[in-house]
């Protein structure tokens, strides 16, 4: 091929190209034109460039420069045209009614009881607690004996506990996880044990035969009641508000000594007394206490060397008061209209 022919082809392209570009009136048409003119595979410019190799060596430089100039001109025109088409598309046609709803997807939801458990765990995690779990079907020993229940404790009554066998129960609290964990891991132990527990309570507005509990346990050398009070008060301040008042009152659990219930000042009446707090000004949040030496001993620890504290709370009750749920059964029904209220 001669240089002249090569350049003529380029000129032809330089002349035809802009007209074809100007004729493209949609992005699809524009795309076709671009491929036809400067497309790498089948574009006219590429075809012409394929002829470059056939030129005399001394002509190639000029040919190359010309081809580049044509390419730049075409690409410039293409970009200009694309912008023009896009601008026209944006302004032409009926305007979007931007008040119309966006296209949503379904939102999932965490169960309100799990929300409370999450929050408890989040607060204690900052203090170095990890999560331990245990089985829901337990031996009487783990559920009662190891926890210092006397052999004929009323809680072991058939009316209170669901039995699976002579020596097997559905755990009545998460406290067996204390013993299992202490058997498996040496102190220091700082754990939370969330899980389902069972009682032989008939379903009504405030009782359920199964409910969630979350247990906390700290065992190490030199752990004191002062640490229990400070940690649980810190928890109350994080969970409720930094100004929430707490009180500890004597209580009794076979597996802690001393035992203390922690109350917080009623959030509804701020302590002046109302129906929510049964006019006491206080709402019970959790039971706690220093781990009974008999429990440490049952788990094989030296109760002179180690001390510990534990607490247990019922997230369902907390959820009920926190979210204003009137009947505990709603938590179990799984009505989607209820669950959706906790969507996020």
């Amino acid at each position, binding site marked *: 091929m001669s240089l002249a022919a090569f350049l003529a082809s380029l000129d032809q392209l330089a002349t035809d190209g802009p007209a074809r570009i100007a004729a493209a009136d949609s992005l699809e048409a524009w795309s076709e034109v671009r491929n036809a003119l400067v497309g790498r595979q089948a574009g006219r410019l590429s075809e012409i460039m394929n002829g470059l190799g056939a030129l005399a060596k001394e002509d190639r430089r000029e040919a190359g420069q010309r081809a580049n100039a044509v390419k730049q001109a075409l690409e410039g025109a293409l970009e200009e045209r694309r912008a023009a088409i896009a601008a026209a598309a944006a302004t032409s046609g009926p305007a979007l009614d931007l008040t119309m*709803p966006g296209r949503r997807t379904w939102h999932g939801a965490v169960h309100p009881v799990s929300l409370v458990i999450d929050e408890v765990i989040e607060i204690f995690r900052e203090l170095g607690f990890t999560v331990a779990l245990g*089985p829901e079907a337990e031996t009487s020993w783990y559920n009662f004996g190891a926890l210092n229940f006397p052999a004929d404790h009323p809680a072991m009554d058939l009316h209170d506990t669901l039995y699976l066998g002579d020596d*097997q129960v559905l755990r009545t609290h998460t406290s067996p996880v204390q013993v299992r964990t202490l058997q498996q891991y040496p102190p220091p132990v700082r754990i939370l044990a969330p899980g389902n527990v069972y009682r032989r309570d008939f379903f009504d507005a405030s009782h359920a035969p199964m409910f969630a509990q979350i247990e906390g346990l700290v065992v190490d050398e030199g752990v004191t009641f002062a640490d229990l009070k400070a940690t649980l008060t810190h928890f109350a301040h994080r969970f409720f508000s930094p100004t929430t008042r707490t009180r500890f009152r004597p209580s009794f659990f076979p597996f802690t000594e001393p035992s203390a219930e922690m109350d917080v000042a009623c959030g509804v009446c701020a302590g002046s007394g109302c129906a929510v707090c049964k006019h006491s000004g206080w709402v019970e949040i959790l039971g706690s206490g220093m781990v009974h030496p008999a429990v440490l001993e049952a788990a094989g620890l030296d109760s002179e060397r180690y001390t510990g504290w534990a607490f247990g709370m019922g997230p369902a009750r907390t959820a009920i008061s926190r979210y204003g749920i009137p009947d505990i059964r709603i938590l179990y029904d799984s009505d989607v209209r209820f669950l959706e209220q906790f969507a996020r």
Partner: protein
Amino acid sequence: MNISHDWLERFVPHGRTAEQVRDLLTAHVATVEGFEPLRADLAPFVVGRVVESERIPDTKLSFNKVDDGSGALLEVVCGAPNVAVGAKYPFARTGTTMPAGLVIEKRKIRGFTSNGMLCSARELGLGEDHDGILALETDADPGTPLLDVLPLGDVRLVVDVLPNRPDLLSHRGVAREVAALTGVPLRLPAEVASLPAFPGKPATGAQEARVPGLRVTIEDGEGCPQYGAAVIAGVTVGPSPAWLRAAVEAVGGRSINNVVDATNYLLHGFGQPVHAFDAAKLAGDAIIVRRARAGETLRTLDGVDRKLGTEMLVIADAERATALAGVMGGEASEVTAATTRVVLEVATFEPRRTRTTRRAAGLSTDASYRFERGVDEAALGELLALGAALLASVAGGRVEHLLHVGAPRPDPAPVTLRPSRVGHLLGDAVPVGEIRAALESIGFRVEASGDALRCAPPSWRHDVAREVDLIEEVARLRGFDRLPDVLQGARPGTVPDHPLWTAYRRVRDLAVASGLMEVRPLPFAAGGQGHALVRVRNPLGEDEPFLRTSVLDTLARRAEYNLNRMQGDVRLFEVGTTFRAVPGALPHEEHRLGVLVMGLRRPPHFSEPEPPAWDAWDAKALAEHLSAAALPGRAIALEPAEAPLLWSIVVDGAPAGVVTRLALDAPVWARPAFGIELTLGVMPSAPPSRAAAGAPAPRAAVPRFRALPTTPAAVFDLALLVPDTIAAARVGEVLRDAGGTMLERCELFDEFRGGGVPAGHRSLAWRLTFRHPERTLRDKEIEGRRAQLLKTLESQLGVRPRTA
């Protein structure tokens, strides 16, 4: 335990208000969970002042104008003789309910309208005085609530007594604590302190004692360590004196007669259940404590005929059982209006035996409640004498004899306390002097023993058995709120997060992000898969006596619950436990993820009024995605399974879950439901040991960076005619194998049957993306690949391209 504030104050004149006592007990002893002003029924009454008064001729009535503070003068007709102008009286406005139940209404009397009532003491339940209305000596303005004016304030404190403290089940027991906390000494209430002492000594014996007219024999010393009896003659059964009636009513009881009320006084005042027999009805003048005989029967005071069993302990006379020991008396020996001679039983029944008797009888009483928890055995002698004297005093008899058979069991053994250990546990040293004083204030005898203290609990504190029990006493008497709170620095714990918890959190995050809603339903089931069902021995209902074997079954019932409420868009998930029976061991427990989807795939939108419904392909992808999130680092495959299952979820080569269509009890409008169930792991239940800290859970492979492509890709489609006998996955495999390293992606994008496709075939189309890492692929190379792929398909599978 109901505590009367007035009664308590008679034991310990503490001078504090009921509110202060409530707070003191709650902070140091036991929670006061009820605070009930006893005359709340008088809350609506107000002070009324008579402004004008004139007699109604020919009657005893007066017509008055009363100022009740409302601004208008009310016309009130009154029958009392003592109405005086200017005086103030209790006034009941119309609508007020009188203590006796009558509602005051507007009435016409002799042509006069009466808008309320001026009240007498008796009408207000304040005494017997009914000679006239109750004149109030007060400066209070008309309209002031009556309760603000009259000193009527007994308050019932409801104390939540926990099982370790049966000593608090009486006014004296609570008063001991108040005395310790306030420093005001404990004493006997005036009404019993002044009673005459019995002049003689009780007749005693180890198993038996006799006095003229009564023999007491303990045949079952294990069930009844000691039995005291008083013979009181010349009794007149009748109404109680006002103070006794008030005491009984203050704790929520009902006054019956002087004998019964006196027994209740001992129960609530001193925590000692006692029982009065009509001595004339005891055959053979005998009281025998023994096991019931097989076939024996007894009609108890509640009028129920009871068949007795040999596990039960009874009080019998010479012929038959006449009371359920420690639980309830019998009708045959009941005190009646005709009774003149009473045998008062003051005994100790053993806790376990009482529980056995109570359970066998299915009858719980105030008496059994106390015996089951343990009474103060050392107080029996004192209370026998006191009870006899009290009964004689209120019922007008005389104490003839006292008998005391058996003996109290020994006081609890002394416990050693190291004062240093108090600080060690509480986080703050408590001075030895304070420790000592605290324990002594509640009846412990404390002796120094080297550096330690030897502390002998009082007879009523059998709950104190270890050093830590003493530390608790010190802590609570000082007050938990006065103990320090110091956040201690902590060493990191040794316990890793449980892998099943980690799996739950991972899978839950993805499930929620996928639009699913978490549920926490009950895990009971009517039945289940397989034979190894776990049955609850004492289920709440026989309709669902088993523990579930499948989370999906539970979700299916929850979906039906929603369908019944016209909710068809159901997207539920749960991570819960399933149970399978294992002979001779705890059930096998698995934590499983369950998912149920039904209804629209996404909310309707105006651009697409009817979005697609969830289908099997959604469920498959969801299952793949959730499985990967739950079980990182494991090989997960969804293998086709037999109907009604769709796929089996295979993890590391073993089946671990399913994807299935669900057959629900569903209305016609419901969309198909799909379920996913995946085992996240097994919850071990064997006793753990230190060594058994298992292998760490597999973790997801760490992603490795791959260089981003710098060369263009070549994309082409292959539409193939695939016989129905060949699975799409097989074709895909062949394509990937034959495509070589430059095949970057291979995606099935179309399935078609019908026009142009021969019977027994379908058209499947793949989009293939090839890329050379270093250069642009040439057209010829791409054509070559295409031809070679088609050739391989033809030779290996007999699959040919779809032409036309």
